[in-house]
C-alpha cells in the first residue's frame, strides 16, 4: 500500500540490551523511489535501556525499513522500537511505533510433564477368588442305579445232554 505524503525522520528509539556492539540501519524509498540505506548507526554494548539514535534530519520517504544486526558473536535482545517522524508539509512531529515482536513483562508458569498423582485413592483388588452369593448343587459320589433289569443266572449245575459215565472202583 503506497501513500502520497512523505515523512521526514528525526529520531529512532530502541529498547534493547546488547552484549557487544551492533548496527542499526534505516532504509527509505526517497530519493529515487527505491528502498536504500539512508542512515547507519552503531548500537553500543549495553544492558537493557532505551538507546536513542539521532538521524540527519533530512532523511525522508514514503516508506521506511529498520534493520538491526549484532556484531560478531554478540547477542541483542530487542524489546521495542519507535521512530520520530513528521509528515510533510506539516510541522507536527510524532512517535510512530515500529512493529517488533513483543516480549511479555510477566512470567508464565509452564507445568513440567510429570504424570499426575491423583488426590483420590483407588481400590486395587487383590487376587482372591470370589465367594459366590448363590449355592451350587454338588452331587454326592453315589453310583447310579441302572434303569434296566439285568438277568442274573442261578448257580444250578445244568443237566448234561449225554450221560457221563462214572468209573466205580470194584474190590479185586
Amino acid at each position, binding site marked *: 500500500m503506497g501513500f502520497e505524503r512523505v515523512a521526514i525522520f528525526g529520531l529512532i528509539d530502541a529498547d534493547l540490551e546488547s552484549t*557487544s556492539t551492533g548496527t542499526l540501519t534505516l*532504509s527509505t524509498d526517497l530519493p529515487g523511489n527505491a528502498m536504500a540505506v539512508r542512515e547507519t548507526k552503531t548500537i553500543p554494548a549495553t544492558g537493557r535501556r532505551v538507546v536513542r539514535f539521532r538521524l540527519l534530519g533530512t532523511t525522508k520517504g514514503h*516508506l521506511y*525499513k529498520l534493520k538491526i544486526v549484532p556484531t560478531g558473536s554478540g547477542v541483542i535482545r530487542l524489546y521495542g522500537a519507535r521512530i520520530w517522524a513528521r509528515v510533510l508539509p506539516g510541522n507536527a512531529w510524532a512517535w510512530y511505533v515500529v512493529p517488533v515482536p513483543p516480549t511479555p513483562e510477566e512470567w*508464565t508458569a509452564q507445568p513440567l510433564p510429570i504424570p499426575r498423582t491423583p488426590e483420590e485413592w483407588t481400590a486395587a483388588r487383590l487376587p482372591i477368588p470370589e465367594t459366590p452369593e448363590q449355592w451350587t448343587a454338588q452331587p454326592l459320589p453315589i453310583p447310579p442305579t441302572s434303569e434296566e433289569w439285568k438277568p442274573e443266572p442261578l448257580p444250578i449245575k445244568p443237566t448234561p445232554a449225554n450221560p457221563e459215565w462214572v468209573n466205580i472202583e470194584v474190590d479185586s
Partner: protein
Amino acid sequence: MAFRKVAQFKEISIEYISPDAAGSLRFFTDLPGNHLATRIGTKVLTATNADKTPNTITFPLVDGNGAPLEGTLYYPRVDPPVTGALQLRSGVVWVRPIGVYLDGTLGEFFETLPISIGV
C-alpha cells in the same frame, strides 16, 4: 528477518516426597553455546518427613550474574537418593519468550518490512 524464539527462565518449583534421604535437581538449557548443559549446578532436594507428606521447593534459574537463564530448549532432571526412593508429584517452570533475540554467531538480524507511517 531471521531469528529463533528464545525463552528466559525465572525459577523452577518441584513438589516431591523423599523420606529416605535427599534427592537432587539439575536444569539444562541450550544457551549459551547451543548445547544442552546444566546451568545451575546440582541443587539438593532435601529429605522430606517420614510421614511422606510432600515438600515444595523452589530454585531461582539465574546465571552467575543473576540474569535469568535462557534457551530454546530446556529440561529438568531429578535424581532420587542413592539409598531410597523419591516421588515426583508435580513441577512448574516460569518462562517468558523474548520477542527478538539476535545471535551474532548465527548471523541473525532483525528487519522490518517497508513501513509507511500511515498518512
